[in-house]
């Protein structure tokens, strides 16, 4: 029988190291994958991923299943940790726009849709500039001003792209969910 994430987190909140072991094994690839995507350096990404699980362990009792999935809760922790590393370690070279292009590239559309993640398919339906802006903010924590500067557009344009892009993505995700639900 496979334990649910909620059960594992409850176990972790109670200090059960076996629950932690299963939880880490289950989620390490997506946590490390996100960390690597943001900071770009494998050794640093491993530190970020480790730190993510340490924080999840310490705050397992703060996870509320009514507010979302354990996966996204965990990835939000990873994203915060990764962004904080970027803010402090100015010696890490990172090019968020280039990274985002690797997942926004229309030539890889088929690849992305095939991975089966709903958000991949949904984002494919959002206009490219909007999608780029949303991912720069959501993953790299860039502000409107930073996005404007990096993509070479006025601040108002960047903010509009972020605003419309996120709503567009939300609407696509909602539509897909409605289609799937009988």
């Amino acid at each position, binding site marked *: 029988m496979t334990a649910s994430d909620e059960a594992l987190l409850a176990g972790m909140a109670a200090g059960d190291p076996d629950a932690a072991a299963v939880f880490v094994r289950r989620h390490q*690839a997506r946590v*490390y994958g996100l960390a690597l995507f943001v900071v770009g350096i494998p050794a640093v990404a491993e530190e970020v991923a480790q730190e993510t699980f340490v924080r999840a362990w310490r705050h397992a009792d703060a996870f509320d299943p009514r507010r979302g999935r354990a996966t996204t809760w965990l990835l939000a*922790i990873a*994203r915060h940790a990764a962004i904080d590393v970027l*803010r402090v*370690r100015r010696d890490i070279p990172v090019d968020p726009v280039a990274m985002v292009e690797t997942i926004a590239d229309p030539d890889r559309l088929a690849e992305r849709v095939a991975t089966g993640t709903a958000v991949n398919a949904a984002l494919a339906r959002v206009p490219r500039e909007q999608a780029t802006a*949303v991912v720069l903010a959501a993953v790299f924590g860039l502000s409107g001003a930073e996005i404007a500067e990096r993509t070479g557009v006025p601040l108002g344009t960047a903010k509009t792209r*972020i605003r419309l892009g*996120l709503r567009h993505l939300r609407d696509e995700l909602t539509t897909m969910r409605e289609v799937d639900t009988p």
Partner: protein
Amino acid sequence: MTASERCAALRDALTEVALGVADGTTRGAVMAHLATCDSCREELSSLAAAADEVLLLAPEREPSADFEGRVLARLSPDPDLRSPAEDLRTPAEPDRPAAEPVHPVTVRRHRARRAVLATAVGVGLLGAGGAGVWLATAPDRELATSYRSTLETANGRYLAAADLTTDTGSGGSAQSVGTVFLYEGNPSWAYVVVRDAGAAPSYDVVVTVDDGAEAGAAAGSDPAHHYPHGADGPDPGGPDLTAGTREIALGPCVVEADTCSAGGVLDVAVHDVVSVRLTDPDGATWAVADRRITD
């Protein structure tokens, strides 16, 4: 401004909060509006859920084979336990006494661990850390907790704390007299709390910050994002302490009942803070909290 005009005016702000890129002021304005606007609350909820999903876009990657083992080794029963001996060494000194199990990559791990900072998850700050050496010692944990809760309200993003110690001269051990708190926000600030104030009626709080331009930075560009791989950048642990620094005077810390507290806004990022010191009325340094120490 009607209610719906307010909703429209806050659309960008709401988006920023959903994406986790809003500053404290923006977040405050949005939260205040949400207190009386159900539709915006629902809007934020659905937008935040969509923003969370975006994190799934990053491709999954397997870390190294012993990753799981190393994580589990760090899940100790008292994760907040820290010793004062861990405080004041630079990341470039690998021979410091280790409080954790030693692994081949110990030095890099310590440096990177200190570089992974506390931040908000959900609504709370999780812990203290910092680039280099800032750690809360046990007696200050209660104080740190109360500051953290203040920062949670203000969407605090980076709390670092360091021991404030007096120099009792050669051969003497430093005595801890208080704590320095640093908050990275918009703006950043430093706050000093002295528990054991000594003889003077007041002290001046002086913050020393890094001020030199970083070597190799391209003119007009953000140094953090334009170093090519393999290029020589500045050594984060190595610069001469006195070169390229300036001082910010934060004002007096007036002693009452053997304690004092004072603080002020910084015009730099917290990780540019080199040291915070208290000077007595004669100008001599009475106590200091250092990010780096000389040998």
